[in-house]
């Protein structure tokens, strides 16, 4: 091969390498940017006066005096809208029954839309559910609901042979000629004075408990549950995994039983996580009765079994990569086998073992399937350390799924779901980052 061809091959390989790195970077961007940009919306958003009202009365946060002043101004503007409603109520009563019938249904829709936007209308009983006690707490949602108030989405079914298309019909045109027509331009013009939006960073999203099944409040119970489950899994799996790895590498004799055990371990690593979930339910809860119901304990044990093979593998590799000369030197100096393992081999293998451990910790934090039947619930309070043996817990991975598919108002609380996704990604990222740092530190110490 002549020099020119070699150089060309070399260059094209470099180009290929750079190209694949760029593609990977782009893929990471495509995944991370929407997660971060959507997720951050749960923390940083324009809150309306309704949100400040909610914070003060449900979480006792904020300045009552300031809010009082704001409410006076906001209610002043709202009152005019309510006056228009009251005027139309009187007008409606005086109409002939047939005309009343024409407006009745549309008027009810207007009232509903206004209630959704501003909260309970005057003269109405305070709803029992917190979600109906307040108007829109977020400005982006308020703008959406304003659109619902101004326009009615109608589907044109006049031709039954074609699929209908939606078109927005202005509600003002439905009420043309009545006193209610004034309401729509009035609300549209004064909405920011009624809602008083301002930018805020809502740290409570991380530290508060959820209120009324995730409509308001934060996700602390989920974050805490995730951390408990991941750490619980580590407490069981890490020591077991390291001990098993020491046995495999230092004590086990090559033979039938040993190769059986090794292949069992490899097989375990390939088992789908839902199988572990069902196994956890059948074994830990229904057979062993480690707890009366689902619990953090049962979930941690299930997750521990799931991550055990990875930990064993990583620890084995780490121990095998310790130079043989270390061991020979130690034994040559008259040390016992056990002493050699504890003082020479394990410390040298520690960075590798820890990396494997922390990567498994990240996996345990992110898994959904093993905890569905063993630990996770959709609603629950933040549990104390004392309850981990008996209580189930909400957890991020499961609640993301729950909010995405099962929740009765999934479309209205997307921001909570996005916020949860961002938190979970952040937790896993932080865990992996700490693994890198830990590893670097220990390696430095060993070399030093």
């Amino acid at each position, binding site marked *: 091969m002549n020099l020119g061809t070699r150089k060309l091959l070399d260059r094209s390989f470099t180009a290929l390498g750079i190209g694949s790195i760029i593609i990977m970077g782009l893929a990471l961007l495509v995944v991370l940017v929407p997660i971060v940009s959507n997720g951050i919306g749960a923390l940083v958003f324009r809150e309306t006066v309704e949100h400040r009202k909610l914070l003060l009365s449900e979480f006792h946060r904020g300045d009552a005096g300031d809010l009082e002043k704001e409410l006076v101004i906001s209610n002043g503007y709202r009152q005019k809208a309510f006056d228009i409603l009251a005027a139309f109520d009187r007008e409606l009563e005086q109409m002939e029954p047939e005309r009343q019938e024409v407006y009745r249904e549309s008027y009810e829709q207007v009232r509903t839309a206004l209630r959704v936007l501003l909260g309970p209308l005057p003269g109405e009983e305070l*709803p*029992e*559910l*917190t979600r*109906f006690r307040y108007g829109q707490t977020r400005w982006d949602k308020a703008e959406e609901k304003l659109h619902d108030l101004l326009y009615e*989405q109608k*589907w044109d*079914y006049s*031709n*039954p*042979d*074609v*699929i*209908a*298309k*939606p078109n927005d019909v202005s509600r003002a045109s439905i009420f043309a000629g009545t006193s209610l027509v004034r309401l729509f331009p009035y609300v549209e013009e004064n909405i920011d004075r009624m809602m008083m939006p301002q930018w805020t960073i809502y740290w409570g999203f991380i530290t508060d408990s959820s*209120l*009324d*099944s995730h409509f308001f409040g934060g996700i602390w119970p989920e974050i805490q549950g995730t951390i408990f489950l991941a750490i619980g899994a580590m*407490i069981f799996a890490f020591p077991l995994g390291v001990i098993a790895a020491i046995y495999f590498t230092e004590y086990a004799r090559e033979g039938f039983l040993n190769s059986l055990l090794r292949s069992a371990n490899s097989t375990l690593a390939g088992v789908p996580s839902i199988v572990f979930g069902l196994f956890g339910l059948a074994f830990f*809860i*229904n057979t062993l009765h480690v707890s*009366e*119901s*689902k619990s953090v304990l049962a979930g941690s044990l299930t997750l521990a079994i799931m991550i055990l093979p990875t930990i064993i593998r990583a620890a084995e590799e780490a121990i095998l990569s310790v130079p043989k000369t270390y061991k020979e030197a130690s034994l040559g100096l008259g040390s016992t086998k056990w002493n050699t393992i504890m003082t020479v081999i394990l410390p040298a293998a520690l960075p590798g073992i820890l990396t494997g451990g922390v990567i498994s910790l990240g996996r345990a934090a992110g898994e959904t399937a093993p905890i*569905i*039947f063993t630990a*996770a*619930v*959709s*609603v*629950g*309070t933040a*549990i*104390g*350390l*004392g*309850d*981990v*043996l*008996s*209580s*189930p*817990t*909400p957890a991020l991975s499961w609640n993301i799924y*729950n909010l995405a*598919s*099962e*929740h*009765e*108002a*999934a*479309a209205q609380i997307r921001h909570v779901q996005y916020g949860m996704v961002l938190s979970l990604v952040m937790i896993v990222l932080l865990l992996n980052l700490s693994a890198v740092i830990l590893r670097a530190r220990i390696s430095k110490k060993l070399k030093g």
Partner: protein
Amino acid sequence: MKKYGSICSLLLVMTLCWAGSAEAAKAIVIDGSTTVGPIAKSFASYFMKKYQTPVTVSESGSGNGAKSLINGSCDIADMSRSMKPQEIAAAKAKGINPVASVVALDGLAMVVHPSNPVRNLTESQIADIYSGKIINWRQVGGASFPIVVIQRESNSGTQETFKELVMKGRQVVNSAETQASNGSVKNRVSQTRGAIGFIGLGYTDSLVKKVSVNGVTPSAATVNNHTYMLARELFMYTNGRPAGMVGRFVDLPKTLDGKRIIKELGFISKY
């Protein structure tokens, strides 16, 4: 190294001791139907605020709720159907005596994509659609568009109720798509033009279009006066007649606040 080890083990022992002593406030554990889920979750929030008793709710389907109750791993099983004889037998065999309390009434709404011009289906048309005899919307007076049939999983009480009330022994067509919760059926229908599905009345909103059945629109009023045929009772099952906090919880539907919560969620109070 040794020092760290002993500190760690000391901490572990301390935590375990603490864990043993702090079991005073026992949580009420609820499992079961996704249809009853919204009621159970709202009751849970209300209950935690009023009595400071922790309540946890999982939504894994009526069948799983029944299994949890039989295995003694939940206090209350939410169910959108009544327990089957074999489930009751299994419970009895394990020394559990399942007692039903009615939570609310619920209509089963047939939903289609909002762009679908079809307004009404008869009971036999629905059965024909689900058994695969009718495959195009044109056959029931709509646009020429293939029907995407969506059903629930076998674990679902909603599915059992639907089979009992509509299918009456006929098989659901194999090509039917299966979704695991009311929410995901609603999602799927709202995104698929030719889709038809059934969900609890409490789950309906403007994303999907409710079709009337035999000319009757599904609503709180028509379910309440028994003119709408696809209606059922929702239950909470407990082991024996419940006492204490669990008893208070299953009696919530009879209280004034409980009735208001049920109504606000779009269900129909029975009491």
